[in-house]
């Protein structure tokens, strides 16, 4: 769990996921005149993906905080 370097590796993986999610071509899949519960799909997708990424960053930062505290 606390393998050294893991925090960094996870950060890079998350960055790649986020970059792909926020950019074309994945973005173009959701760029359609479709409404989800009355909300535009692209709008819903972007904010949900955004919130998801933020949550993951939060978890990752908490893990980093634990590991650095443990190391000190």
């Amino acid at each position: 769990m606390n393998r050294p370097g893991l925090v960094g590796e996870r950060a890079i993986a998350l960055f790649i996921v986020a970059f792909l999610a926020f950019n074309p071509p994945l973005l173009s899949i959701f760029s359609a005149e479709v409404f989800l519960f009355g909300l535009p799909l692209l709008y819903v997708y972007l904010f949900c993906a955004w919130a998801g990424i933020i949550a993951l960053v939060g978890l990752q930062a908490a893990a980093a905080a634990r590991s650095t505290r443990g190391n000190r």
Partner: protein
Amino acid sequence: MLSGWAILLTSLAYLCLLFAIAYTVDKRADAGQSLIANPYIYTLSIAVYCTSWTFYGSVGRAASSGIDFLPIYLGPTLTFVVWWFVLRKIIRISKAHRITSIADFISSRYGKSTGLSILVTVIAVVGIMPYISLQLKAVSTSFNVLLQYPVVATPPVPAHVPVLADTALLVALVLAAFAILFGTRHIDASEHHEGMVAAIAFESVVKLAAFLAVGIFVTFGLYNGFGDLFAAAQAEPKIVRLLTLDSGAYGQWMTLMLLSMAAIIFLPRQFQVTVVENVDEAHLQKAVWLFPLYLLAINIFVLPIAIGGLLAFPEGLVDADTFVLTLPMAEQQELLALFVFIGGLSAATGMVIVAAIALSTMISNDLVMPGLLRLSWLRLTERGDLTGLLLFIRRGSILLILLLGYGYFRLAGESDALVTIGLVSFAAAAQFAPAIIGGIFWKGGTRNGALAGLGMGFAVWTYTLLLPSFARSGWLPISFIDLGPLGIELLKPQALFGLQEMDSLSHAMFWSMLANIGGFIGFSLSGRQSAIERIQGALFVDVFKHSGTQGGGSRFWRGSATVSDLRALLVRFVGRDRAERALGGYARGRGLNLAKLHEADADLVNFVERLLAGAIGAASARVMVASVAKGEMLRIEEVMEILEETSQVIEYSHGLEQKSRELEATTAQLRAANERLKELDRLKDDFLSTVSHELRTPLTSIRSFSEILFDNPALETAERRRFLTIIVKESERLTRLINQILDLAKMEARRMEWQMEELDPTGVLKEALAATSSLFAERAIKLELKLDDRLPKVHVDRDRLMQVILNLLSNAVKFCHETQGLVVVSAAARDEGLYVSVADNGLGVAAEKRKMIFEKFQQANEALTDRPGGTGLGLAISRQIVEFFGGRIWVESVPGHGAKFSFIIPLNRAAVRQVAE
């Protein structure tokens, strides 16, 4: 209610509230009680990223091109995802090196280069100018819109507003005063502005609340929630278009995302709040997700407000940039409108204050001070208190920055939308990315690479973004954009070298980044790093490997500085109180008494340099410390590096040199020893041959006479007697010779036993004469005596003295005139001592032989060697004896008229006294 006075008073009251917050926090900070040291305030201060561009401009952009207002906020989220690698590293480096601005950071990374810090400052000031003008424009526009209440419309742009009556100028001056009050109350060595951070955080709360209030009002007041609003939007085809992303906009989408990824760190104000004002690295761990959350919150209602505005107003009546304000106004929500105005004011003032403080720090630390310090005729390095000058420069530069922003607003501001102006600044800030990101991950980046990259990128930025914005505002002929400069199509600033497929922003970013990254890498790879660049590069890239956050690497101090000089230096730049407090803290921490300390050690010098770096930047601090310190300052890594490079070579050549020297010395010794050996060998050979010759002569005659006697038994008795006499004499001679050789050998080896005594030489002389009288009589030699009555006593060995005299007498007899021999013996007391001489009237001694005859086996006349009694050792032995007595022996001679041998034996004290009585 929304009269001009009411708006002005409210705004003023709000600004006063901000100042009260800042003032309180500053006071508490001075008392050592930090109110801002928590991750939430830190996060809110980073939210200074959301300016009036976000507040008003996002809605405007959403109304015109839909969802693509969003990448500007998604980008920072991406950057914060990799905070572990980038932000954390930059903050760690900045704390270790007491970085005060982005210019300081870059210059410090590339060997504390003053040239770089100046270039970065210029880029930052020129690049941020449009951004500041954007804020002025937003505040003055929103003020004018609000002033028209209850009419809701975009106020017409007047043909010409006199400068003094311009709202924007008033706003600029008020904001300048505000920034000066906040940011330059004093010079703080750590460059922390706690009061300002608190005020900014408060403003972030206000702007978020105001924006959310409008969003909730539109979504839930005017419509029944999101569903209702989007349902209404679906009825309008031109609004539905905004809800998807046109595939033609993909390029710009990615450009905006990349731009904002860079801007969230490299905009000077973001660097200021995120890096410089960071009080605890741990705060970052919360901010990395709280700040994106803030961005998400402030963006949720952008699209609903834009749609609400588009649905509410007929096309073209109201500028979409003002929807946030005009929607409440149209619904007669006066208080909400005023709140929104205050929110917009918050967004604008926050940005302007932080940007102005960050830029003024850069201008004073990285542009003006290094310049002034280098002007030797100003004698600044010798002048007294400089805190006043420093504050003056900062205040002046804040005013200058805002007036420049206002100038850009007058010149170009009216023609573009808020977002377009802001993006010009974003693109300028992005130019710092290659030098910084390259600098913290790649040790090979050089000063020249950074200079080339930044310079070329900035030049392309100016040409492809700044100049066209001037052209659009009519300051340059519009043909500059449409036809290219001087009609050269290939140089069209928005289609450089015929590149037309991209939008103007992506086009500018492509070319400027190509020039920037290309220049940085190209020049770095083709040039060499100086020692200090290499050291700084290693310290930056390996910041986590170097111990702790304290100290910028240990240093090696060569030379000396006095404590009082360093104290005086600190007082001049940070003020007496702060200087004393800092030094006191330092001394307490190490248990030192600075009052007793005269010479500062390396630690103290570094401590002072770091403190100064906080106040005036690393490059200037280095110059200042060097001005009071004799000798140079070197980081230990630098020394190690230099040593590594040269020591091997030096050691090698040193070794060689030493070896060859040793070899030479040994060779010389050997040669000398060899010479000596050869000489000894030759001497021994000579001696042996001479000795054997001398021994053989008597032996030969003894043997031959013995054989005659043996072979002729019938020999006459007389004859037999004669032969036997010869045999006896030769035997005696042989014995004498052997005795003398032994004596000489003993004397030379200093193994002779001497029986020294005090005696009267007269007795010895008379005895010797008596012993030789028969010789004289035999050869009928006349003896003449010239003896003084009283001769002084001498300290000698009686037998040896006798030996010398006998020797001289027998020699005289031997070499006397054949027929009329005369020998004169004289003895006298001289000042030097006892003088004795024996003179004959023989052949004499040739001048060249006078020294030689005292050597072994040397005789004046070789022809006479056969003479019985001559061993050739007598004079040599005599010399040894006389010299042992402390005297000397010599010969005087006139060839043909005889020779006179003399010796002197010095008197001892007792004898001298006796003679005197």
